[in-house]
């Protein structure tokens, strides 16, 4: 019999073990379950207990009413934490290796820092910064170090000189035509961007990855039908559908995000499918099957982790595409005017470009930098996470 402190493989009594049966329940699975249950409970509380027009957290004295998108964002963040951050933390060795590779790309590191600021600003900014209130008297305040002819402003917060109004630190990026602080709006816009980018991307990735995997593994008719559907969806004019929805039910950010997520997973699905097909030929997949593991286990433990790097790279391209799409729709006046997204801000400044260009330029620059950062990040991740892809590209 094996001694307690030094069990050996050849003394394992397998009959005893396999008859015990049962799945292993890991701590992280329990934690994820608990978090999801907590979220669900809150949601129930919001919809059942809290009266319709009362803010969700009114009971604890916080006057914030949680929206549908907020719930989705919370859910997305949970998934990112459990399937992104936690594995990185757990597999410290691998993380360090990735980091070493990633670090070589300077612009990407800068991008990461920038995106981290946007992320933190998006999550915590609205909690600590009061929402930008409209103050008509303070309209068209210029940013610091800039000025505007006196006749555009009603009340100049900074110093006036020679018929111009100068900017102040009170409104570092100036104000909008209705006197909202642009810096605050950009911070609030970070959260909107996060919602658009994160939720839609996560939806697209989850649906795409599932369809791709099922397609690859089921094969035959299922594969055929799914892939033909992907073809159809790819040529489907999502914009027209969105317009249709706006005119029939009225649009909104929630609808927009949902549509983005539901109609842009075809690339991911194709990609994951072909990746799954080629990876299933790898010997480690055979080895896993040979160990007696079922298809689910093999997919979960080997296929997904090995496809993840490509999915992440794919996601870094999806996020900026969604952000840009939101901005474009807003600019065309098709966006959700009730939220302070960067796109909305840009479109607000549209009519005042000649004398108050900052209204458009400030959010435009942030948007541009965000998109650029995601592109740099995507490139660097491709290199760091996918050494094989890099080798192929070089050869």
């Amino acid at each position: 019999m094996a001694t307690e402190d030094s069990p050996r493989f050849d003394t394992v009594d397998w009959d005893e073990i396999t008859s015990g049966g049962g799945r292993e329940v890991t701590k992280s699975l329990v934690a994820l379950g608990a978090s999801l249950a907590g979220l669900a409970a809150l949601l129930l509380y919001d919809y059942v207990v809290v009266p319709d027009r009362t803010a969700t957290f009114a009971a604890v004295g916080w006057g914030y009413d949680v929206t549908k998108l907020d719930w989705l964002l919370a859910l997305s963040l949970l998934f990112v934490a459990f399937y992104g951050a936690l594995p990185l933390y757990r597999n410290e060795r691998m993380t360090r290796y990735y980091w070493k590779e990633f670090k070589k790309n300077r612009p990407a590191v800068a991008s990461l820092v920038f995106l981290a600021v946007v992320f933190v600003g998006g999550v915590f900014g609205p909690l600590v910064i009061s929402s930008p209130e409209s103050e008509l008297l303070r309209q068209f305040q210029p940013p610091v170090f800039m000025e505007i002819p006196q006749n555009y402003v009603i009340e100049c917060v900074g110093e006036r000189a020679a018929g111009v109004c100068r900017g102040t630190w009170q409104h570092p990026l100036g104000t909008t035509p209705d006197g909202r602080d642009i810096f605050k709006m950009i911070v609030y816009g970070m959260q909107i961007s996060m919602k658009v980018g994160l939720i839609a991307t996560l939806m697209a990735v989850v649906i795409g990855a599932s369809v791709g995997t099922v397609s690859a593994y089921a094969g035959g008719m299922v594969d055929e039908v799914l892939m033909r559907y992907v073809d159809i969806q790819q040529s489907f004019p999502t914009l027209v559908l969105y317009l249709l929805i706006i005119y029939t039910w009225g649009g909104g950010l929630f609808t927009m995000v949902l549509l983005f997520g539901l109609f842009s997973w075809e690339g991911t699905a194709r990609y994951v499918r072909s990746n799954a097909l080629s990876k299933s030929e790898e010997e480690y997949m055979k080895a896993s099957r040979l160990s007696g593991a079922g298809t689910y286990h093999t997919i979960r433990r080997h296929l997904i982790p090995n496809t993840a790097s490509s999915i992440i790279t794919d996601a870094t391209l999806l996020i900026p595409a969604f952000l840009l799409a939101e901005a474009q729709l807003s600019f065309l006046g098709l966006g959700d005017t009730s939220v302070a997204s960067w796109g909305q801000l840009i479109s607000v400044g549209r009519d005042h470009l000649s004398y108050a260009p900052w209204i458009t330029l400030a959010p435009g620059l942030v948007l541009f930098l965000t998109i650029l950062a995601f592109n740099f990040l995507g490139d660097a991740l491709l290199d760091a996470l996918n050494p094989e892809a890099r080798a192929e590209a070089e050869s």
Partner: protein
Amino acid sequence: MTERPLLSVRNLEKHYPITEGVLSRRVGAARAVDGISFDIARGETLGLVGESGCGKSTAASSLIRLEEPTGGRVLFDDGRGEGLRDVTRFDEADLKAFRRNAQMIFQDPSSSLDPRMTVGSSVAESLMVHGMTDRTRRRKIVENLLEDVGLSADDYDRYPHEFSGGQKQRIGLARALVLNPDLIIADEPVSALDVSVRAEILSLVDRLQEEYGLSMLFISHDMSVVRDVCDRVAVMYLGKIVEIGETEEVFANPQHPYTEALLSAIPTPDPRQRRKGIELTGKVPSPVDPPDGCRFHTRCHRVIQPDEYDLEQSHWRSLLNFRDEVVAGAVDVGKVRESVEAGAADGDAEATPDAAVEREIRADFGLPERLSDAAAERRLGDAFDRLLSGNEDEAAETLAAAFVTPCEESVPEFVDHGDGHRSACFLTARDERALERPANAER
């Protein structure tokens, strides 16, 4: 228990359908493994050798059911007192239990370890899959095992890219061992490794096998490796086993010409063993359309002559190669003629005499100017006349009718040479007379 084998493979077949068109109409099959049989006793190592593409790896993956075999039986004794049971009929649960008894080492250690998993988890995976839910126990077992295969317990948390090829193969061994199987299939376990570490890994395999009483199916294309590790050896050619026997016996006294050819390719340091390298001519046939009769007849250097002829053996071989090429329409007379013309004197625009072209073709195929056997020479000359006058089809017919080896007319049966040494070749079936034939041919 001793007389009953651990594994007994009977007529194992794996045919891959070849389909055509949108409707996937089945137009044929690649007969990768075409009815092979062998036994492996407890604690024994059987080598399965052959060129790449002969089906040996397919045989391995079908018998362990990584791929579903299309025919035959694989009988395995799982030691539960139920005797030999047919693996090909196992249901999920049986198969999962079978996985604990039979494991595999893969050829390429780099691709057989998941690059995104610590090697410890890779090895421990099997334990988890089979229900060992105690994380610390898994870890302890794997750490001990890693030490056993010559690595350290700390290596548990490292990733495959941090190891050398040899070390990765040690990990592959650990993974194959961790469920304490009775049988391990090693699919070319050292051929992807540096020559310098091969010996180490082989001796590790040897030691572990001894220690844990493992049976092994050792697949290789390298005869010299097989000689070092295997108790018995089976030689495979184009989906079939052509010779099987005790390693020493097969090496000392090969009965099948193909085995002989493989053995002659081993460089020997011993000058007294004057085994000349035998060069196999003729093209390697495809398993989709294997040759009739003895599958080796298109390349066999000892391919038998019909009684009517008495030719030098190498000429007979060349003659058959020539026949096969003509029948396949692969002899381009026009081209030869052109090159002969180009080679002739510059100003000479006159048509080159057919004789020169014939000489050229004969030289290409290693045929002499005149065959020593008059009857054969007459028929060959006839065929050449037709070929050179542009009648390729008739030439092919003439050749096909005139030169036929008994080897392609029927399939040789296995002949027992004692002690389980068997081979399938007409030469040995014809016993004494056949064995002397090569000597006769020298006259």
